[in-house]
Every structure is written in C-alpha cells, then in structure tokens.
C-alpha cells in the first residue's frame, strides 16, 4: 500500500506525505503519499472522479492541503503560491488544455521561459545588454523546445488554431520552458489515436533524460501507463488502493475491483471535483 514500502532506485525528488483535502463533507483525497525519485516516471491512475487531478492541484498549490506535507528536494512547498511552486521547479500540464490562446505558439513558450529571466521592468524599458541577452536566449531556447516537441514549424501561429495533438505538445513544451525538475502531466494522450499515443509515449520517456526531469503522469490509457511507468499509484474515491510496479498493480484485486466493479457494489461517483476552478 505505501509507496515507501516499494524498493525504489534513485534519490527522492518530490515527496508527498499523507496529503488530505476535503471540500465540505466530501473527502476528495485522503492519506495520499508518494515518492518520486530522480528521473523517475510514475503513473497516477484511477477511475473517473478518483481524485487524480485534485492531487495535481494539491501538489502545484492550486488547492491547499488540509493536512500533510509536500517536499521538493526536502524543501517544504505547503502554503506557497502556485507561481512560486512553479518557479521552485514543479511544472504541470492541464487535462483540459489551458493555452494562452490568442498568443502565438512561440509567445506561449516565451511567457513560461520568461519567468527564469532576471530583468525587471526598468531593464525591459531601457533594453539593457542583460535584457537583450536574456530575450535572445529565451527566443532560442523556446524555438529549440518547439523543435524537440516537433512543432517548431508552427511557431508563428496562434495557439488556439493548432490541432488538438499539437496543443497537447505545446502544453508540454510550455511546462518544460519553466525549467522544471518535476513535470506533472495530466492525461497527455487524451483524445489521441493509437499512432499518436505511441509517439507521445516515446516522447515522454525521452524527456526524462533530455531535460533531467522526473515525471508524474495521470493517464487513463492502461497500455501506455503499464508500458512506460516504473511505478504506479492507484486512487479510488480519494484513497490510495494500490501502489507498486506495473506488474504488481495489475494483479492487485482491489484495483481490478475498482476498475471492473463487483456485482453488488455500485457506488455513486462523488461529485465532480476534478475541475481546477
């Protein structure tokens, strides 16, 4: 049950300890623990309404946990604003894509890369040499990121005009532009066809080495999760019902029950608590 019980290579990067949050009377997540090792690729799965996105919102500071600890490299993240957490190295994508639609693809990335720049407003107004160097570096890095994600040829287009798959790629590129140490991907292959899913899986795996990030992945596609994740945590009704390697989780009776159900147990799903705002 406990993530810490699993033999686990690598130094821990992100640690969540006994996180819990309730909305009114509804316990959306309770007693959630997770250890994400360096360059690890972990999956977070569970039926609809299990509280997966709520976990992401807790980790990124959109919601404040009622109890429990979040640590990134032993630095406590509880109580920090989402923007501060992002600058600390925790970047995410969104299940329902949230791009800066009117801006160009390049500007989407530049916005995220810009938070690593040091120039303040006065330097921007006067365009000092430091500002110029930063802006040039931001453009170059942004184009490189687009290149890696395979959407560099769309740099000048409006983000909202991109096809769906490219919007997902842009979300990942934008998250990477903040130079994260941990990347949280919320259903990155939702709505994609088989070929696209395979490409995306390959891409996600490659990101770890290229960008030196650890990845936590929410996904409904079992095949994908089982293929690429080293460790999987299964949530149901906000409770961790299983955690371990893909092989272990697959055989776990409680997981099978959660996904397939048992004849006389058909609980109503809790009210929608996945939406961010």
């Amino acid at each position, binding site marked *: 049950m406990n993530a810490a019980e699993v033999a686990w290579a690598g130094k821990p990067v992100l640690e969540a300890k006994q996180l819990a949050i309730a909305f009114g009377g509804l316990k959306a997540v309770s007693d959630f623990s997770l250890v994400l090792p360096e360059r690890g690729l972990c999956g977070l799965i569970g039926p609809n309404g299990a509280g997966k996105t709520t976990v992401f919102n807790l980790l990124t500071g959109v919601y404040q946990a009622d109890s429990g600890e979040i640590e990134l490299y032993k630095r406590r993240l509880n109580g920090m604003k989402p923007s501060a957490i992002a600058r600390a190295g925790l970047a995410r994508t969104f299940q329902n894509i949230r791009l*800066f639609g009117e801006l160009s693809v390049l500007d989407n990335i530049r916005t995220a890369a810009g938070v*690593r720049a040091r120039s303040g407003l006065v330097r921007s107004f006067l*365009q000092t040499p430091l500002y110029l160097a930063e802006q040039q570096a931001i453009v170059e890095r942004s184009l490189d990121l687009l*290149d890696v*994600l395979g*959407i560099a040829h769309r740099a*000048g287009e409006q983000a909202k005009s991109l096809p769906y798959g490219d919007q997902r790629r842009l979300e990942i590129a934008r998250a990477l532009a903040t130079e994260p140490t941990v990347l949280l991907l919320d259903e990155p292959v939702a709505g994609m066809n088989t*070929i*696209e899913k395979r490409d995306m899986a390959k891409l996600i795996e490659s990101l770890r080495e290229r960008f030196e990030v650890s990845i936590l992945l929410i996904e409904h596609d079992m095949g994908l999760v089982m293929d690429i994740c080293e460790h999987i945590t299964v949530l149901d009704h906000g409770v961790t019902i299983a955690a371990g390697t893909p092989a272990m989780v697959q055989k776990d009776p409680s997981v099978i029950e959660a996904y397939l159900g048992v004849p006389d147990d058909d609980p109503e799903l809790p009210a929608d608590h996945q939406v961010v705002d």
Partner: protein
Amino acid sequence: MTEGSDARTRKLAERIAEIKPNPAVALGRSAWPFLAAIVIAFLLQVVIAPMLGGFYAKTLLDIGIAIVLASSLNIVNGFAGQFSIGHAGFMMVGGYAAACVTYYGSIKLLMPQGELTEAIGVSVLGGFLGSGDLLFLASCIVGGVFAAAAGIVVGLPSLRLRGDYLAIVTLGFGEIVRVLVQQTSDVIEPVKAVDAGVGEMVTHLGGPLGFTGTPTYVSPTPWATNASGDQTGHAGIFFAYSIVGILLVLVYRLKMSSQGRALLAVRENEVAAEAMGVDTASSKVSAFVLAAFFAGVGGALFAHSLGVTLNPNELGFQKSIDLVIMVVLGGMGSITGVVFAAAFLTVLPELFREAAQFITHLVGYHGQVNTDAYRMPVYALLLILVMILRPQGLFGIKELWDLGFWRRYVIPVWRKAAGGWLIPKHEARLPAAIARELSTERTGGEPAKSDDSPKPGASGDQP
C-alpha cells in the same frame, strides 16, 4: 539538425552567459526611439502645427492627449485584461496634483511678489524650457506619481475580483475621486495663496466650478505673446507628443518583454499563467500602477491645455467610457490600434461639426446645431457595429505591422535596412517565416522540421 543533442535542451542561464551584446550598439538601440520621438514632436510643433493653423493644431494636441490616456488604459484593459472603467479617476488625481504644483508652485516659487496683487490666475512663466516649463514637466511627474499611488489602491482589489465585479470597483473609485473633488472649496487667490499651507491648498481645488486659473502650458501655438508682451502660448504640441512618443516606446517595449507577455498570459488564462510561474498578483497590480501613472501624466497634460478648466464633472464616468471605447475599438492589447482609435474618435466630433454645417447650409438653416449631442449615439452605434463585425477590435491583439500588407512588403525592407542595428532581431514580431529563419541560422541546416511528430494535424480535432 542535431538529433537529441543536449544543445537544444540547455538551460536558459547557460545561454544568457554566452550572449554578449555589444554595449555601444545596445545603448544606441535603447536610446534612439526616445530621441526620434522627441525630434518628431519638435517637428510637429515647429513645422506641422503652423501649417495646420490654430484650430487643427488644437485638434492635433487633443489627439496627443487622447493617445496618452487611451494607451495607458490599454495596459490594464488590453494587456492584463482587467476591465477598468474608472480611468478618468486616475486622470483626475494626476491632473489635480499637477495643477496644484503649477498653480500654487508658481505663486510660491516663481512669481515676483509685486505682481500678485492684481493677478487672477497664474500666467505662463519663462520661455521655452524656462522655469515655468520645468515646473510644468515636474508637475507631470508629480501627477503621475500621485495617480500611481491611487493605482495601487485600485489594483489591490483586482487580486480578488474579476470581470464585472472589478469593473464596479474601478467605477466606484472614479466616482469617489470626482465627489471628493467636488467637495473642495474655491481655488485660493494668488495674493492669499502666498501664505497658504499645504492642508489649505489641497482643500481648495475649485470644487464643482473647476480648478480655475491654471497656467496654459499646453497650447498649440509656440512662444506666442500678447499685446503687453506676456507669453501666452508654450510649445504644448512638443510636450504632449514627446510624452506620447516616450509612452508608446515604453508600452511597445513592455509588450515585447517578459513582463508584458506575463500580462497577456494573465489575460488569456490566469490559472495557466500562475502555473507557469507568473506571479499574477504582482503582474496585475503593476499593470494598474503603470496605467495609472501614465493616466496621471495625461491628466497633467489635460489640466494645462488650452481652453480647459479642470473640472470634476468633465472627468466623470463619461470620460472613462470614452477611453474604454477607444481601447475596445482599436483592439484590446494593440498599441497601434488604440492610437488609431484615439485619433479617430477625437477627430470625429470635428467631422460632425463640419458635416452638420454643410447639411444645414444645404437645407438653408442658419441656426446653431449642437453637434456634441450626436456624439454619444454615434459612439454607441460604432461600438455595436464593431462588436458585431469585429469583436476583437480594429487590430485585435496585433499591431499594424502584423497585418498582411505591412508584414509582406514593409517589414522585410525595414528589417533588412535597419533590423540588424536599430532593433534586436528577437523583437520583430516573429511570424512563422522569421522563426524558421532563426532556427535555420542556428542549426546551420535546412529549415526546422519535426522529427518526432510524423503528422501534426492528423489528430482528431476535439475542441
């Protein structure tokens, strides 16, 4: 292309360290737009204004002031997407603060004591860029600072409110300022003002009658004198358009900078902006402060312009709406669009007047026609038409040079001729072609093609 190499994934800081801009070139690039703005303002004053003659020169001046006010509103309404309808409040704070500085300041600092007994107002003092002009320019900055302080006060609620609710708060702010000013007493006469304390001054702002007797530093005629040899006009177009130019350069640089993109990100999607590390709270407040500062400067220009008595009724809700219409019509977030809209809507009433005169002459009516009464219905009609035909405004978020003709024919020439020296390459708006060109330059090979996405665009198009 270097497949999977580290070069493409290195961190920003490492790259910044590698790029060493030439400081001399950087200084030149930094300074020339400001210098150009001042030169253009000077030419407008000494060449164009005399050609236009008194009436149209005054219109030119009004356009300049309108551009300052509308462009400043564009920072908060357009860039940051925080809908403010109390901008005239900032203008009023800045205008009254500046009027206090020039009126009471002139009396206390500049005017010879002997002349005060018969003076009913404060006359323009000193020659071009003389003591009076310097006091006026200082008053612009004071006005801006006071308005910026008010901007913090209004910006803070914007952290918790959005949309209509924020609009109501800004509206309330504008009304509060207006009502407060209305409660003040008449302006102190120059002869008595010599001994007045600060507390007395700020409670004597003219009330509902307006701040009478402010010197007219912003008049279209330069260096004019009346029969007795007193100076009556100052180079108002020069001052106004210098400020317009500096403001436009700053706003453009803001839009191109990381801070500007952060504002646009807040406008586009606040949750995503926050998740990408943009401190949305400080972004929003700084947008309000910047916008308020320039509105204050605009208010100072307005307070000292020809034929204006700073008046709380004139700077009420109506004025705020006028400014909002300029921003919406020009395109929220488009600098050039807002400049066009401000100019157009300032000229429009004059066009009405001419048209009305023409028509009344045709039908043989020779009485007075109050054309100003038609302004609002026409504004409303215009706004409705824009909302139906082009809801994003004239230019949307884009600039003049992003549009087809300019991008195709003018910008390439400009980039070739001046781009390397005058503007940093990353600042050209980077349409697709330029982006490709940039990435080709770096990789030294053929244009960038996707390597790990076989067919972008082949995916199912879910919304």
